[in-house]
């Protein structure tokens, strides 16, 4: 999937993946896609909850080799 920016959140625990996702999205424009890589198991539910509450679109969630990759499209 194409993306405009990547956030490496490997090794970070709650709430850092969410807070850093929010900060990364802040300097992007509507429609751009942020790729987030996390190793925090809790981030799977948290990223979905973040998207639901902020209106940004979680385009996909994939687990690859123990890492979670999220594609979040800015509202």
């Amino acid at each position, binding site marked *: 999937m194409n993306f405009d920016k990547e956030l490496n959140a490997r*090794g*970070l*625990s*709650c*709430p*850092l993946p*969410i*807070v850093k*996702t*929010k*900060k990364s999205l802040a300097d992007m424009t509507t429609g751009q896609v942020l790729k987030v890589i996390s*190793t*925090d198991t809790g981030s799977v539910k948290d990223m979905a909850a*973040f998207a639901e*509450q*902020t209106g940004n679109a979680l385009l996909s969630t994939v687990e690859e080799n123990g890492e979670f990759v999220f594609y979040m499209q800015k509202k």
Partner: protein
Amino acid sequence: MANKKMAIIATKGTLDMAYPPFILGSTAAALGYDVQIFFTFYGLQLLRKDLSDVMISPLANPAMPMPIPMPVMVQMLPGMESMATMMMKQKLKKHGVASLEELRDLCLEADVKFIACQMTVDLFEFDKSEFIDNVEYGGAATFLSFAGDTDICLFV
């Protein structure tokens, strides 16, 4: 649509109890909430510039996981609190949990408002110069004027 609001009263000044207000505050701010945290009694310690005195104690804390079972008589020995704090901080770091300083900075960056209880500051004769700058001082009525209109209000 107006932002959702969350208010937290932070009353504890130990390492373990310092995390919930800052974690919830920074996360709620990331979700678009307006957040205020009211620091009162021992919670005021979380506003100090230097947070190195924020500790955790195994004493009277039977739920704290210990590497080896430790009788209360041992837990009360001098230095045990510092040791437990050091071990807890190492554990937090190993698991990628942010430090209190980092979470507090994230709150401030996200415009979480910190209110220090003026009454407790006076009661404990705290020196305001020991606190971080981004703090407002107020009382219960100040807090309630925001809290009365929140979606979430928590006492920690």
